[in-house]
């Protein structure tokens, strides 16, 4: 292993920073009501759990992990995201 950091990791990092700023902006644009509120909440949750997915995939290096472990992690991300959206929107 040569130990050089793949560019992919740095790009994921940049993506995470940008996503954090986007969700913060979304959250601070409060005073939303009705369907716009539901959409903003859903979007926030989706962005947040996409961030979680990428932290697992590229920071935890799960992309090289056995498929069972990767699947377990992804199931967690998916299940919690869906449950969160359902509880907020429905």
């Amino acid at each position, binding site marked *: *292993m*040569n*130990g*050089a*950091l793949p560019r992919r*990791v*740095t790009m994921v*990092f940049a993506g*995470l*920073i940008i996503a*954090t*700023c986007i*969700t*913060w902006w*979304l*959250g*601070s644009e*409060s005073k*939303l009501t009705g369907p716009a*509120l539901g959409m*903003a*909440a859903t979007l*926030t*949750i989706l*962005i*947040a*759990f996409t*961030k*979680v997915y990428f*932290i*697992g995939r*590229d*920071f*935890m*290096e*799960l992309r*090289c*992990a*056995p*498929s*069972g*472990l*990767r699947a*377990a*992690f992804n199931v*967690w991300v998916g*299940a*919690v995201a869906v*449950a*969160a959206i359902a*509880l*907020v929107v429905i």
Partner: protein
Amino acid sequence: MTHAQARIDPDLPEFLWGSDSVEDAPRSASLRPTKTRPGHTPGEAGLWIFILGDMTLFAALLIVFLWERRSDPVAFAESSHQLIQPIGAANTLVLVVSSYLVVRAVFAHRGGRYPQARRLVGGAVSCAAIFAGLKAFEYYSEISAGHTPSSGTFFTFYFVLTGLHLLHVIVGTALLLAWQTMLTRQRPWTESQKVAEGIGSYWHMVDLLWVAIFALVYLVSAE
């Protein structure tokens, strides 16, 4: 088959005989060849039981939090607005940066670049300190404003979620410092791989849990 070769000490009870060396170790089941599976488990398999188990506990807390929110979303929104969102956001950025430094440190350790790895881990520890400092300030502000864990369901969950998370940050920091000691001693990657990757994975878990907490407690509740 028998332990006749073990050191026999008539002054000690029998179960304390036996050497401390590994050569005497009985063939344990784990030395059987395991079926090869493609892919490399970061750290070791057992650690992931802990990490996924921990993530599941936090997920349960977050789900119940959202469930409780449904009975009074207005009160939750009001309470959430009392939180200092910029601190929450800053803490998210701080942890993301620290996670990035940890990934770079793993690669540096792998490549034998010990001084660089040590600096990167040190950077992550500094980020943890910043996180803790911001958190302390945030708690102080909340409590001075009269919001305590008994100020209603939202604040109960806020303090429990962030408090448990902070405990994880503290444990994680201790682990990072232990890793830094390994790096100072220039422990080679072949010996340290499982431990270093394990500590890294634990830290990434701390990061991703905060991402979820920030999104649901600070942002979604306030909307």
